[in-house]
């Protein structure tokens, strides 16, 4: 389905055409759902939360001034709503020692990844990403999949740009290390 610019729908909604909001929901639902599920990691909770995100966005739409992209504004609501939900339960913390992170060569891991089939590559990546803490999983997804800029990620998460940069660098390192371990195990399994 081809969508128009967000501003077109926003103007229609502001003019009282509520049904135009369904187009915005349709356009952004998968990304909002992805953000929420990356943090909550539960489909049941994620659906309810993602619905709440859109409801909040609808109710606050008159205050949206268009200074940033609508998607950035919407994702910040999604991020904050999901984070608020997880406040009661402890977020998963990093379990990888920073010293270990730097003890390998990225080229070596890239090389071993290219030796895998595309399906195996995706499988390894999924495993490695699922092993990341919720927030880190989301940051790397926004950066590489959504191709959000560091400034946009900073707006969505409320972190400073320099903090986002440092975190992304560490997450990348961590992912490479996790991939290295996963590949090593898989290669050992293949050898048997």
């Amino acid at each position, binding site marked *: 389905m081809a969508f128009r610019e967000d501003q077109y729908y926003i103007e229609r909604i502001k003019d009282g055409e509520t*049904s135009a909001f369904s187009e915005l929901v349709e356009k952004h639902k998968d990304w909002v759902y992805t953000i929420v*599920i990356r943090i909550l990691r539960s489909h049941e909770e994620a659906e309810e939360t993602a*619905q709440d995100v859109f409801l909040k966005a609808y109710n606050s739409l008159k205050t949206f001034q268009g200074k940033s992209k609508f998607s950035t504004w919407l994702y910040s609501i999604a991020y904050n709503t999901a984070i608020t939900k997880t406040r009661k339960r402890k977020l998963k913390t990093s379990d990888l020692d920073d010293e270990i992170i730097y003890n390998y060569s990225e080229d070596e*891991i890239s090389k071993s990844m290219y030796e895998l089939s595309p399906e195996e590559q995706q499988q390894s*990546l999924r495993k490695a990403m699922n092993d990341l803490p919720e927030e880190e999983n989301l940051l790397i997804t926004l950066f590489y999949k959504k191709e959000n800029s560091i400034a946009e990620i900073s707006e969505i998460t409320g972190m400073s740009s320099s903090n986002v940069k440092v975190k992304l660098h560490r997450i990348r390192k961590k992912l490479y290390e996790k991939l290295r371990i996963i590949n090593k195990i898989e290669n050992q399994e293949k050898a048997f």
Partner: protein
Amino acid sequence: MLNENNDILKKLIAETDLEKAPGGFTAKVMKKVRAEEKSQSLFDPGGFLSPQYWLLIGSALGIALIFIFSFDIPLLSWLIENADLRNITKILGQFLLNIQAYITQIDISTTSIAIFAGIGMLILIDRLLRKRFAFGIFSL
């Protein structure tokens, strides 16, 4: 800091599938939106009158309440008791007299009533101004 050239991570993550929102998601959201809109139009003063009108009505009501309950108005009492009014008006009149009697009984001063009315008005004005000039974390 982030070397993106020939980065296999970038390539792989870009190729991953997005999570798909469950079926009927948009319909469920719109149902909630419409329900919310309905409840807002029922309880939100802005639903059928502009804030200015509500401010005017609120002010008039506040002044009228101060006038009725703070002073002993013989004409008002005489009108309610002696005028040939319909039953419903009599009941309403009696209700007003009861409130007036109650207020007199608790011996609340005119100044206190004026203060309460003033606070009420300020809350009303605050609410209207907040709605009109809403700036919050979401007003990016």
